[in-house]
């Protein structure tokens, strides 16, 4: 008998056979259960896109955004979206009228010492971008989505331009830093942070800007 090499006994052969069977069984289980490496899930499905849109919609319909997306000839204000005081009207360019412009009170940034919000080029969204009806009722998710994606109404913005608008537009940015009310308290914020809002917009655009079915 040579040293260093021991002929397998019957028990050893039985152990090896069992080990191979177990490994084979493991591979079979892996194959059956799909227990393989999954890369991070990309927003590729319509369902993903619709879920992202609902997040975007939750921001667009928050008072910090929608009070200037009216269907009427006046802006709203406050969390209850009441008609803007002092008989403020839209005017031909959405910036008020000659002696009562938005800029009559709203400056280039928030005036926290006096409670007046402000941002660059403060103005109403054009009527084509209305997200409410004439009774100040907020439009449905499907209706707002349709309006936002209609290039004849949205300022001829494609997906990239919509993303840029949500990312950079000063008045969009203002909604996430709306400053203090006249009583010194902070104005309420949209339900997402700006970063989350932009991420949701990006995901919605990556999936082809899907819109919910009109009810």
């Amino acid at each position: 008998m040579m040293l260093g090499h021991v002929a397998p006994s019957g028990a050893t052969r039985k152990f090896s056979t069992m080990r191979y069977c177990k490994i084979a069984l493991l591979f079979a289980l892996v194959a059956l259960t799909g227990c393989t490496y999954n890369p991070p899930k990309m927003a590729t499905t319509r369902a993903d896109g619709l879920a992202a849109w609902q997040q975007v919609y939750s921001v667009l319909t928050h008072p910090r955004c929608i009070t200037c997306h009216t269907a009427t000839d006046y802006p709203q204000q406050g969390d209850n979206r009441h008609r803007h005081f002092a008989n403020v009207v839209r005017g031909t360019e959405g910036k008020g009228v000659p002696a009562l412009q938005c800029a009559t009170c709203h400056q280039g940034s928030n005036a926290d010492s006096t409670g007046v919000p402000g941002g660059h080029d403060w103005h109403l969204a054009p009527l084509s971008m209305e997200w409410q009806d004439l009774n100040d009722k907020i439009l449905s998710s499907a209706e707002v989505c349709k309006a936002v994606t209609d290039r004849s109404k949205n300022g001829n913005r494609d997906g990239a331009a919509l993303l840029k608008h949500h990312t950079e537009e000063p008045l969009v940015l203002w909604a996430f830093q709306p400053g203090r009310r006249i009583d010194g308290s902070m104005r309420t914020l949209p339900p997402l942070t700006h970063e989350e809002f932009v991420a949701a917009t990006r995901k919605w655009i990556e999936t082809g800007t899907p819109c919910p079915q009109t009810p």
Partner: protein
Amino acid sequence: METYNIIVNGLAKRVSVDPGTPLLWVLREELKMTGTKYGCGIAACGACTVHLGGVATRSCVVPISLLGSRPIVTIEAMADDPVGRAVQDEWVSLDVVQCGYCQSGQIMSAVALLKSVPKPTDKEIEESMGGNLCRCATYVRIRQAIKSASQRLKT
């Protein structure tokens, strides 16, 4: 406290105030220009209206820190302004004023309107002047005076 260099009625002024101080109080308290009135302090009445960079502005809600380089024009300069002069003359001619407290703001808004719309309609007057309140309810005479000033400026 911060120091600000501002232009009021064409003159350079230097004031040292808290950055949150409304323009109204800079005019009245620091510069002793009391023609501009305090009415409500929340931009709801229009008594404090001045022109900021040519725009009718509620001075009670604009902190001095947000003025930038925009020139300020107040009621004190209206007599030397052609449109302002015409409006003031018609105000006197039609005896618009009752108590008079709101009238400097009314005139500043009326001048801003006429400089933008030389011949305003009733609707344009109502919309532009809608934020200027008058407890004496001189609105009918205000409207007539604006129309008369418009006519005077055309001739």
